[in-house]
Structure formats: structure tokens, C-alpha cells
């Protein structure tokens, strides 16, 4: 089999790092993209030492428009054609709309919306149609449920949902497999996720470990699954969502909102 290369954005931490390790285990070459100062060279060196694969690292800010071309110019320069793209980089928030400034929202929308769209466009251009190509877009269950304090984040993930579903239609019958990953909560950086530890019951069961999500996602992507929802509890929630009438869902969300407002 031909040696495959995967591009992973936001590769230095959390789910991105788990994608890198998971693909390395499967003997797939890596092009890792992450912000400068996020520990990317150390991760790349560690993977090189432990696996017999090629790892290229690109430290850059993906909200800088020049960098979309820079990635593919670099690949052309070193003679690599990528046949996997993991659009993982993203910026989350859990705050009232007034609590963040416009610079934050601009950055969030650029990173969560513009970056994956433009990278997908450029990726398809270089991948050609002879070999099967895979795209994995990291969405969120938040793109399906309306969750207070996730107004812009949830909206960007809804965008990714529509974008991915539509491309699946356009590219059906082609050599491109495009999958949407819709995870619930993921335990990533502990300093950011003290909240996850406070959750109980069902809410707790929706939270998975990054390495498990990465393994399930890559399995799904390689099988050409259209939507990957890791975790049985999360799949149940999606099923319930499609069955419950709108007014019931609304009242659930409102009662949750009351809980949040009380705090």
C-alpha cells in the first residue's frame, strides 16, 4: 500500500495530539500544524523517535490568511502529497455573549469556520483524484443542540455540520471521503476542564478521553462514515433529539438555562 500522509491542524494539544499518536500508530506520515510556543517541536521529535514515520511540523497561526497557502507550498517544496486532512484546530468558549470582546469572536470564527473551509479547498486541489482522500472535520454535538453560553462556538460547529454534509453530497461517487466528527465533551487540558470533574450522572457519561475519541474517529474516517458520534450515551442523545418534539426540547433547554442563571 502507498505511504499516506495526514495533515493535522491544532496538533500540539488535546484531541489534535491524540490524532497524531493514533495515526502514527497506523504508520501514516504526519504534517503537524500548531501555534508557535505550543510544544509542537517536542511532540514531533517524540513521535519521530518512537515510530518509523516521517513527521513534518509547521508552527504557524492559522488565522493568518497567508498560512493556508504556506502549508501547501511547503508540501509541494518537499514533494509530499497529503491524502488526509484533519480539520481539528478550533477555539471554544463557555461565556455569556457580552463577556468576550470582538477580537475573540473574530478569531474564533476565523479559526473554526474560515480555516477548515479554505484548507479543504486547497487540500482537494493538491490531492488529485487517483488516490482515495480523507477529510475529517471536527464538529461538535454542540452543532446539533442549542446550548446557552456556546452561542458563537455552537454556531461555527453548525456551519461545519452543514458544510460537511453538503460536500458529502457534492463529492458522492468521487474518490473523496469526508466525515463529520461530532463528539460530546472531551477531557483534554486539565487546567481548562476543572468543570468536567464537577459533572455527574448522564452529563458525566457524555465526556470521553481524547485518545478514545481519536481512535473511534480515525476508524470511522477510514471506513468513510458520514458522521461519527463517539460514545453510546452521546448516540442515544442524538437519537432522542430526533424523536422528541420541539416544545419538549425547548423546555429542557430552558430549565437548564434557569439552572445556569441561578449560579
Amino acid at each position: 500500500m502507498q505511504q499516506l500522509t495526514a495533515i493535522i491542524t491544532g496538533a500540539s494539544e488535546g484531541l489534535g495530539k491524540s490524532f497524531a499518536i493514533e495515526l502514527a500508530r497506523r504508520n501514516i506520515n504526519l504534517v503537524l500544524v500548531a501555534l508557535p510556543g505550543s510544544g509542537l517541536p517536542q511532540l514531533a521529535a517524540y513521535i519521530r523517535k518512537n515510530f518509523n514515520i516521517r513527521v513534518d511540523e509547521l508552527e504557524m497561526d492559522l488565522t493568518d490568511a497567508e498560512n493556508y497557502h504556506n502549508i501547501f507550498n511547503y508540501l509541494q517544496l518537499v514533494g509530499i502529497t497529503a491524502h488526509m486532512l484533519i480539520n481539528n484546530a478550533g477555539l471554544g468558549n463557555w461565556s455569556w455573549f457580552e463577556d468576550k470582546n470582538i477580537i475573540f469572536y473574530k478569531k474564533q470564527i476565523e479559526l473554526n469556520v474560515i480555516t477548515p473551509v479554505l484548507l479543504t479547498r486547497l487540500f482537494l486541489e493538491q490531492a488529485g483524484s487517483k488516490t482515495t482522500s480523507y477529510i475529517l472535520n471536527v464538529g461538535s454535538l454542540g452543532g446539533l443542540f442549542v446550548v446557552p453560553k456556546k452561542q458563537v462556538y455552537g454556531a461555527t460547529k453548525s456551519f461545519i455540520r452543514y458544510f460537511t454534509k453538503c460536500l458529502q453530497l457534492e463529492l458522492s461517487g468521487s474518490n473523496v471521503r469526508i466525515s463529520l466528527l461530532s463528539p460530546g465533551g472531551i477531557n483534554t487540558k486539565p487546567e481548562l476542564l476543572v468543570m468536567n470533574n464537577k459533572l455527574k450522572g448522564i452529563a458525566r457519561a457524555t465526556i470521553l478521553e481524547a485518545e478514545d475519541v481519536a481512535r473511534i474517529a480515525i476508524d470511522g474516517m477510514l471506513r468513510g462514515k458520514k458522521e461519527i458520534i463517539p460514545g453510546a450515551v452521546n448516540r442515544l442523545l442524538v437519537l432522542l433529539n430526533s424523536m422528541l418534539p420541539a416544545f419538549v426540547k425547548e423546555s429542557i433547554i430552558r430549565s437548564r438555562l434557569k439552572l445556569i442563571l441561578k449560579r
Partner: protein
Amino acid sequence: MIKILVTGATGFIGRELCLALAGKGYQVRALCRNTNHPYLIKHKNIVPVQGDILYPDSLKKAMQDCTQVYHTAALAKMWCRNPDAFYDTNVIGTRNVLSAATNAGVAKLVYTSTCGVWGPTLNFPLSEDEPRIVGFPIVYERTKYLAELEVQQFVNQGLNVVTVNPSRVFGEGPVTDSNTVSKMVSGYLRGKWRIIPGNGEQVANYAYLPDVVNGHIAAMEKGLKGNRYILGGEDISFNQFFSTVGTASGIKHRMLRVPQKAIKLYSHVEQFKTRLTGLPPFFLPEFADRLKFDQKYSSQKAAMQLGYRITPFGDAMQKTVDYLKQT
């Protein structure tokens, strides 16, 4: 005379550290919640000081005139009835110690972390600047990692802290819930530990207590501010581990090899039992997952910079077995 405060003075590492420092002629203040604790070592140079790292006032008193502090106190058990206890002791407690040290003008502090901040490793032994590859489902590891972030903040503000990261520590000392290796060995000697997880080829790193104690003192003498040093031992598989214990003790048991999946299933039963009854679990799922990985660590940095030395595993285990047989 140099006065040194040791927190966690009744702990597996802390008590031996107190003794080693006292033997070198330092005046050691042994911080403990209960000054009559049976594990506290009696020595003319060891002065027990009643205190608790969760009470800043007691730290302030204990640290008066101390030039050096060893912070070994931690909650290292697998499970605790109060889920916040790990965060309180390991993160807030460490912050309290660092802040008291800053206010008391302590010249240097050695913080006892763990190799658990890296956790599982891939094919080669891991060194200090290499990354962690999985998340933090184990609460002990998570809170020790958060504590290291606290240390980093105090270092950035000017406090001279050196961090040491022991691997799985074993040796002559009390068998408690915090020390898995001693529990395994003493269980084997009494014929109560008869299982080997998986095919027994999973490798972990085992550090001998006197080596780790010497590593602490060397870190105080030579460690560079803000640096971390792995204090480990040899990388040993479960099969090698139990055959060494067998040779050292002259006791040969037929060991049962239990597949990781069966252990995982059993751990869920244990977790359920704990949830219903509040009784301590024997094993938890996040630990069962760990059996899929090696935990190999390299002590090369400590060897180069601190002169850290590793006692051969066979010799160290012989001494441990002889000790546990007597008690």
C-alpha cells in the same frame, strides 16, 4: 546549623528523607498532622512539628528560620472517599507550601512530583522534555500535574524550586495504600497476590527508596532552578518483576495471567460497588486502561546533573523482600 523543613514526614519517601538529612547533621523539622504518628522516625536531629499543609498559619510557624524545604506531602492513594481531597492536598496544599516558603525567605525548595505527570510511554524510555500522550483520567496524576503548574508560577516569580519526579518507588518502609509496589510484594510473600496482568510483558519503571532519597538531597544541592529530574530505576516487566521477587524470597507461586479486558470488566464492577456502598474499590477502570501501556522512564538527566545512581533491581528487591519478610 541549617534548619530544614520536610512536609509529609510520615510518608514513604518523607520519613526516610528525614532520617538521611538528620544523619548528615542537619536539624530537621518534620511536619506532620499527628506528631505521635507511628511512622515518624525518632532521631535527636528530627524535631516533629505539628501542622497541616492545608493550614497556612501552621506552615508559617513551621518554616520560621528554615533555609531549605522538601515538600513531599501528597495524597497518593488510588481512591479517596472525598473526591476533592486530591485537589485540596496536592494542588492547594502545594500552593500553600510555596507561598509560605516565599514569605519565609526560604533559599531553596525541592518539590516531590511523580513520573505520573507523563504517565504512559511509547517504545523508548521517556525523558523530562518529552510530552504526555494521553489525557488525565487518573485524579492523582491530574492533580500532581496541576501542582507542577503552580510550581512553575512560583519559579517565574523568583522562588528557587527544583522538582523531582520519582517513578514507582519501593523499598524498606511501611506498606500503605499509597505504595502499590510494596503491596504487590508483601501480597506475593503472603501468597495473596497471584495474578499477572495481560501476558506480563508490560514494562514499568521501579525506583529504589534509598536512591530516591539521595536524589532528593542531590536535587537540593545541585538541581537547577525550575528544572525537573526523573528519579527512576530499571524498566522491568511484570514477568521479570515476579520472577525477581520469587528468586529473592525463595517462594515460587504459580501466577495466573489475567487478560487486560477481564481486568477492565472487573474494575467496572468494583467502581459500581464503590458507588453503591462507598467502600474503597480494589481497582478502577482508569487504572485498568493503563495496563495497555508501558511506563518506561530515563533517569539520565538526574545521573548527569545530580550524580543520581540506580541500585540494580535484583539487589534492591532482595533487600526489600528481606525487610518485608521480617515485618
